[in-house]
């Protein structure tokens, strides 16, 4: 039975690795300017982790094969180097991996979080609330009007709690249910939550960030490919969490201009 376990271990290990090596299930194509760093990091980690995984499972399997079912009284041997060698190997192997991955991984993180958005980035505000995302564009004046959460009335489509009569900056704000952005233009996303925690996740953009009620958080990104992508909520927010999504439409600049103009008429 030890031999059977050994074979099973090796088969399972290789079978587990096959879908990865064959790229059967992979992240969708990256459409962002920073995503390639994440993809490289993921790929490097996959190789290192994959080697460790396969090595450990296969060696375990080989040893089980070799040392199970031995004749009674067989001589007991010790792994060469004993514990010292293995401890040393662990420190070196893992230490190196940690340093390499850590050092290079910082870059991808820094690009997302430690750089400020460009001065001419397009600001878009997103409000997450049970169970939809809504977006606000500042309109021609480039300014967002103040929010009055106590006046939020979804039945009247006053999603953000704007007072267009009293606040002049709110008059030209454009509230939309879909997020349209022009291609190759940096977007400065201003995030806040209306009720509970949510999260903003676009797989193709390689960005994800929680909404924390009470905090004003932000992200910036640039989309590089025209298309329609899902924005999904990844922070459990209640019964409609599974249905909490919006669409990101990356358009050419002329298409975007036409779209935002049309949205302005729907306010």
């Amino acid at each position, binding site marked *: 039975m030890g031999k059977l376990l050994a074979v099973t271990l090796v088969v399972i290990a290789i079978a587990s690795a096959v879908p990865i090596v064959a790229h059967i299930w992979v992240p969708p194509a990256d459409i962002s300017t920073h995503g390639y760093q994440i993809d490289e990091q993921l790929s490097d980690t996959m190789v290192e982790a994959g080697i460790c995984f396969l090595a450990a499972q296969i060696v375990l399997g080989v040893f089980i094969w070799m040392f199970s079912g031995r004749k009674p009284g067989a001589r007991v041997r010790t792994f060469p180097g004993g514990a010292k060698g293995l401890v040393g190997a662990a420190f070196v192997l893992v230490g190196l991996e940690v340093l390499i991955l850590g050092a290079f991984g910082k870059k991808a993180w820094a690009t997302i979080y430690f750089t400020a958005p460009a001065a001419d980035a397009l600001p878009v505000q997103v409000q997450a609330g049970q169970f939809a995302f809504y977006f606000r564009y500042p309109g021609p004046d480039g300014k967002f009007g103040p929010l009055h959460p106590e006046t939020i009335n979804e*039945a*009247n*489509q006053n999603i953000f709690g704007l007072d267009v009569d009293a606040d002049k900056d709110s008059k030209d704000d454009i509230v939309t*249910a879909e997020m349209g952005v022009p291609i190759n233009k940096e977007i400065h996303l201003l995030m806040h939550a209306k009720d509970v925690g949510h999260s903003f996740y676009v797989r193709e953009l390689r960005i994800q960030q929680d909404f924390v009620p009470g905090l004003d958080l932000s992200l910036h990104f640039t989309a590089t490919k025209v298309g329609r992508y899902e924005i999904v909520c990844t922070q459990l927010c209640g*019964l409609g969490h599974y249905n909490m999504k919006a669409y990101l439409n990356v358009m050419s600049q002329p298409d975007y201009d036409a779209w935002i103009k049309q949205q302005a008429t*729907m*306010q």
Partner: protein
Amino acid sequence: MKKQIWYRGLAIFSAALTLIFVFVMSQREVKAAPASGASITGTIKLEGTAPHQRPIDMSKEPACAAVHKASPVTTENVVAGSGGGLKNVVVYISEGLSGSAENEVASSKPVWDQKGCQYIPHVMGLNPNQHFEVTNSDPTSHNIHPMPKPGGPNHEWNKSQPSGAPPIDNTWQAPEVAIHVKCNIHPWMSGYMVVVKGPYGVSDDSGSFKIENVPPGSYMLTAWQETLGTQTQKITVAAGKPATADFTFKAK
């Protein structure tokens, strides 16, 4: 001795029969009184231009967005027809009904449907303890969340109804004008359940309403619209003769 057993058996049998009879009779619902009363009809009009109704973008629910692609829908706070008729106004008798007429529960069981990610009807009138049925005609799950006044006699509830699930049957305990109904999953969905005692009517596309089974008498009629408030009017109903009452709401 035998006779005693016989009489005892007969007594027990009669008692049981009586109990069963009483039980069965008590389960029979009180039918609405036969239509001896008259009806009140009328038209609700809107004076001025209806406030701008914003278009609703249902893109987060592709199944519903597809339904409305040809004819987009808007909010329904004030729905005025081409002739100025105001829809979704609930007209009911707020004063003057006698005890028995006041406590009668309409026997119909109206249906509150979710279709195309909208509530149909947008406004529903109900009596306290009148059963209504919530149905889901959409391919997506909905979540019915009526929000009566906190701390009041009517209790808030919040239930999901997956596509194809059986209808949800419910009632409201007490009168309330009005209970706002939301769908948490689809934030634009909005409707009102107006729970009143006595007979009521809800105006249609042309602004016409009809209240039936009104016993003869003098009453105060109230018309309620979800954003334009309420209006009242005195009315006298004679036996067998239909009465009319019109209301005009001013656009804010």
